[in-house]
């Protein structure tokens, strides 16, 4: 029978500094709901947001609450790997769908894959792997690597090493999350005279790094980054007039200038409503809601039809910001990755622009560790 309401629990970080990511995700979910007219298959949708405080235990408890108290049908969101890892079992044991909007942990892409878990993002390694290819193409022979010393940081460096063929002239794994002074690393990097510097810094650390990068007089060395420079950090960098960031390169599966119908509409409406560019976090969250909508449509609003919903989602048959893509056996996207450059837009705002497609239909390397077989 048709459900009275589609309930979606959305776990993200709303408090503290990282709350800026959660805010972008929430706003994007709102846009998605606007586009859906607040209904899926004619059934009204309710999204309940919960704050994980970047703590696994809290994330787990909030998920418990969503599943067992609010009785949601889908749990989505999750920025952080450790939070989703802690929350995963609660959702799966309750027989609900878990739609991951960001965290790209190799564990869930591999050994912990599950028929009820889908990602609308990527697996961590893919983006730096794409960057490795870019560096090869651009003839970078020696590279200085700086990244924080935690799981995602090490994933990024490993991902890069999978494809980058040149020499790593030096590598610094910095203290996480306390360290926001990079003078020691920058002095070393300058002394090493590399062809380029590769960084990965999520959140506020990016700004600190890039500003010190330019203060240290490193601007002549090209800067390559992953997940560091995006629509959340660029306005801040512009505020401080850190021009060093203009013209630097990064890789991603999406960019606000992406030329798909859904993306154009999403970005335009987001800009209209919130006066800024959405980030990839937002784009992924938008897709999460749209993926869920497609599942609810397939079941005709009857949320007990798990198999029908799952089959539909596996087909990835919904208007995604990235255009058409497919799901791999681990239910992570097989998708294209692009090189982006930081530029000024027509209004003088700083944003990213797609320069080149690096990977076509790329699948993450952990899919083979997933025991599920692709039957769709």
């Amino acid at each position: 029978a048709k459900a009275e309401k589609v309930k979606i629990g959305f776990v993200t970080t709303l408090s503290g500094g990282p709350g800026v990511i959660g805010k972008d995700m929430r706003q994007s979910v709102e846009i998605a709901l606007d586009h859906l007219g607040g209904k899926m298959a004619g059934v009204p949708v309710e999204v309940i947001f919960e704050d994980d405080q970047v703590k696994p235990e809290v994330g787990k408890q909030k998920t418990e609450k969503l599943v067992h108290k609010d009785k949601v049908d889908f749990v989505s969101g999750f920025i952080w790997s450790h939070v989703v890892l802690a929350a995963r079992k609660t959702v799966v044991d309750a027989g609900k769908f878990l739609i991951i909007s960001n965290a790209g942990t190799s564990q869930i892409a591999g050994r912990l894959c599950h028929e009820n878990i889908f990602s609308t993002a990527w697996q961590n390694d893919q983006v730096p792997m794409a960057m490795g290819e870019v560096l090869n193409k651009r003839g970078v022979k020696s590279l200085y690597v700086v990244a924080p010393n935690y799981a995602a940081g090490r994933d990024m460096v490993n991902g890069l090493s999978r494809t980058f063929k040149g020499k790593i002239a030096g590598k610094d794994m910095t203290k996480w999350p306390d360290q926001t002074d990079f003078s020691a690393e920058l002095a070393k990097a300058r002394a090493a005279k590399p062809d380029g510097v590769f960084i990965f810094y999520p959140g506020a650390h990016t700004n600190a790094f890039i500003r010190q990068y330019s203060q240290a007089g490193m601007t002549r060395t090209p800067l390559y980054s992953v997940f560091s420079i995006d629509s959340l950090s660029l306005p801040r960098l512009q505020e401080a007039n850190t021009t060093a960031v203009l013209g630097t390169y990064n890789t991603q599966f999406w960019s606000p200038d992406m030329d798909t119908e859904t993306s154009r509409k999403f970005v335009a409406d987001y800009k209209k409503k919130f006066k800024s560019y959405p980030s990839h976090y937002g784009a992924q969250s938008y897709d999460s809601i749209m993926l869920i909508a497609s599942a609810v449509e397939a079941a005709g609003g009857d949320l007990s039809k798990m198999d029908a919903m799952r089959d539909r989602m596996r087909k990835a048959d919904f208007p995604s910001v990235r255009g058409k893509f497919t799901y791999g056996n681990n239910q992570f996207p097989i998708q294209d990755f692009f090189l982006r450059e930081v530029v000024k837009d027509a209004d003088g705002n700083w944003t990213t622009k797609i320069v080149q497609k690096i990977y076509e239909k790329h699948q993450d390397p952990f899919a083979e560790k997933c025991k599920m077989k692709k039957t769709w």
Partner: protein
Amino acid sequence: MVTWTLVFEQLLNGVQFGVLLFLLAAGLTLIFGIMDLMNLAHGSLYMLGAYIAATVTHWTDSFLIGLVAALPATLVIGIVVEVLVLRALYRRGHLDQVLATFGLILFFNESVRLIWGPAGIQVPLPDFLNGSVDLFGVPYPMYRVTVIVAGLAVAGFLYWLVVKTRLGMLIRAGASNREMVAALGIDIKLVFTLVFGLGAALAGLAGALVGPIRSVGIGMGENVLILTLVVIVIGGIGSIRGAFVGALLIGVIEILGRAFLSTLFELVLPSNAAETAGPAVASMLIYILMAGVLFFRPQGLFPARTG
């Protein structure tokens, strides 16, 4: 590939980092060491200093005005906090103070998020501070040099204030026995309020100075608080001299550890072991240092001479 100019530059980096820590540590050692108030919210004042300086800089387009505005603003905030909350807690144990100032941290962090949003602010540097100067053949950012100079000046001022002036004596006397100081005709409440304000303003100054280098964001206070506590504990709680030496020590060791530890490990360990051990040990370095110092000198390097 370690050259002497690189080592020298890293030393400068260490000193600069140390000086910044000193600004925080000096205020904390006054409040915590001398007034015996365990103030976890010291980091919050640092954060507020940074936010206020950043905001004023954006309003006025002048970093200098922003910097100068942060001082009285944090002074006043400090005084208000002292009068409303902390004044009642001097006689209580450290734990009550921990609980209350933890409450203050939560309050300040969330208030900042309400007022400024979660994203943080960036502070542009004025052009005249943006270049670099040549220090013995090493091009070093002008701004970092400015920070070093400012910090040293404050250090001198504080040493004079606490050790040489009557106000300094009263602060120290009040720390050991408030009641007696009052019974001898001194308005000790006022003295403490002023000292707290001074400590707050120093934290605010550190925050304002750090804005153009690092990012200004929520929670910036807590990380630095721990580091600051480490500094004053190594130096000996309540000793301005200890705070100074401790801050420089931590600054230099932290930077040198980050800079050269991995290289050092590569000389003695197989390369993949060195790759994991290097950053891990660099992260722990200051804690190892502190544990070591306390193991051999349980009162820190310069034990404040109390009874």
